[in-house]
């Protein structure tokens, strides 16, 4: 029963959602929106559990004075303060909540994003070592594309930008599409396996 019920729910909801895709009738659309509303309700309940996990995990670190417990304290205090501000003073355009979001959280996120440039440089250094024929081809293609897209690329050879564009639009696009076709089949097969109960890893196994 512990396995049968989830499998039955999965089958019924999965098949009904596939059928819904082909029916534009208002009844079908209402069914779809009802399911989406249920998802929001489920998410709300899951969020309570998730926030509980944050409190328990970081609370334990603080109580046990584990290394770095101070950061856990900062996490919990920040979360509680921002939640209180949002709940009691609102989240409107001019609210303190928005000011915190725009002046603290956004710059921090932008800082993380900016780090990507340095990570790209270090990754490129590692990737562009011509250790084999494949890595040499990668290096050569990347070099041509980079030079071709730079303004001075056309001074090296007038057709270099065109060639760089061809690399991007033909061999690169062809391999991307090949991968995407495989992904599409993989995704459909995974969905079918789960709906039909063939794939049961999400229930902890076969039995």
């Amino acid at each position, binding site marked *: 029963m512990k396995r049968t019920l989830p499998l039955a729910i999965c089958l019924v909801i999965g098949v009904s959602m*596939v059928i819904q*895709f*082909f029916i*534009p*009738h*208002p009844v079908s659309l209402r069914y779809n929106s009802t399911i989406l509303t249920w*998802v929001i309700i*489920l*998410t709300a309940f*899951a*969020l309570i*559990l*998730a*926030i509980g*996990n*944050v409190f*328990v*995990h970081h609370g*334990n670190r603080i109580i046990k004075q584990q*290394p770095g417990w101070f*950061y856990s304290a900062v996490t919990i205090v920040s979360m509680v303060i921002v939640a209180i501000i949002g709940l009691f003073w609102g989240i409107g355009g001019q609210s303190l909540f928005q000011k915190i979001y725009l002046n603290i*959280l956004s710059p*921090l*996120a*932008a800082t*993380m*994003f900016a*780090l*990507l440039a340095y*990570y*790209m440089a*270090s*990754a*490129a250094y*590692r*990737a562009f070592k011509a250790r084999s024929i494949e890595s040499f081809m990668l290096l050569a293609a990347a070099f041509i594309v980079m030079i071709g897209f730079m303004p001075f690329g056309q001074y090296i050879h007038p057709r270099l930008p065109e060639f760089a564009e061809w690399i991007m639009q033909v061999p690169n696009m062809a391999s*991307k599409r090949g*991968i*995407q*076709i*495989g*992904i599409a*089949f*993989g*995704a*459909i*097969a*995974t*969905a*079918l*396996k789960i709906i039909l109960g*063939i*794939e049961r*890893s*999400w*229930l*902890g*196994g*076969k*039995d």
Partner: protein
Amino acid sequence: MYLVCLSLITIAPVTDVQAADKPNDAGSNIDITWILSPDDAFIEYYSVLRRSSQDTVEQYIGRTKYGICTFEDNTAQDNTVYTYVVATVSGSEIARSKPSNPCRSYPQVFHSGRINVLICILIFSALVLYFVRRARHDKNLFIRKIAGLAAVEDAIGRATEMGKPILYVPGLWDIDSTATIASMNILGEIAKKIARYDTPLIVTNRWSVTYTISKEIVKEAFISQGHPDKFKNDYIRYLTEDQFGFAAAVNGIMIREKPAANFFIGYFWAESLILAETGAMTGAIQIAGTDAVNQLPFFVTACDYTLLGEELYAASAYLSREPLLLGALKAQDFGKVLALAMLVAITILAFFGLHLSSVMTVR
């Protein structure tokens, strides 16, 4: 002189006004088409008027610019019969068309524009069921070696020997993404292997629903291996929904707790390289898998093994070696052969002037 001539012209009305129910919709929509007025270049706009059997006068429902000969009435009541008149307007001059054919809107029960999708789903489902059925009898289905998955055992063994945790990141999409669902299946298989050893596991989650599901999956995996006592609630962590906040938190875990093996399996965006490079700097063995095509080069560069696209969806079958799941993989391969054959056939036909690419369009 030219302006004077213009003012003397009597504008001609539009002709052949046709009304038809909008196909493949939920009702309330009627498409109106007409042939432009011969004086289209001189007019200001076309007014669309509607009249039902209950109306005594025509109702104005909207207008279009000159040069446009279609209008969609979104305010129709289903099963009410309407006729439409298009008025050509130029300054104070108005030229009315003849009324359109009577028309009513109604909702459809089948989206005929998606029949190609239905056929593909039916063919592919039949393939999956056929190969799954075959796999029940033929237990020795061949599956090529996938280096990234063959290394999973080594990665877990290495972490166990070093006494360090294993980090698992199930991507940044919520559970409604197929990549996340595939990642959850892989997590179940990896958790089963981990349960046999005494190795700590850290699963970091961006979404509350993935947090609850991954917790249940890991707990069930430990129970299925007969080690429910080894499972700790602290193995599964909810971090934050913020994309770069999540990346920062995972980086912090990698730097502070120094996992010996990192799994990045699921859908990723720009943070992929931030995570993979930080993991590479800590010296962990890294296995990534994603169907985000644009992130694949970053993972290939910074990780030891990468599951490319569809390999992500094959991973659960590969790790569990369950014949039924392996049978579904065969169906995937046959599906690709069929898709390739169709692409080749449509391309060849296009050379002969027969363009069938619209057959593949999903509406």
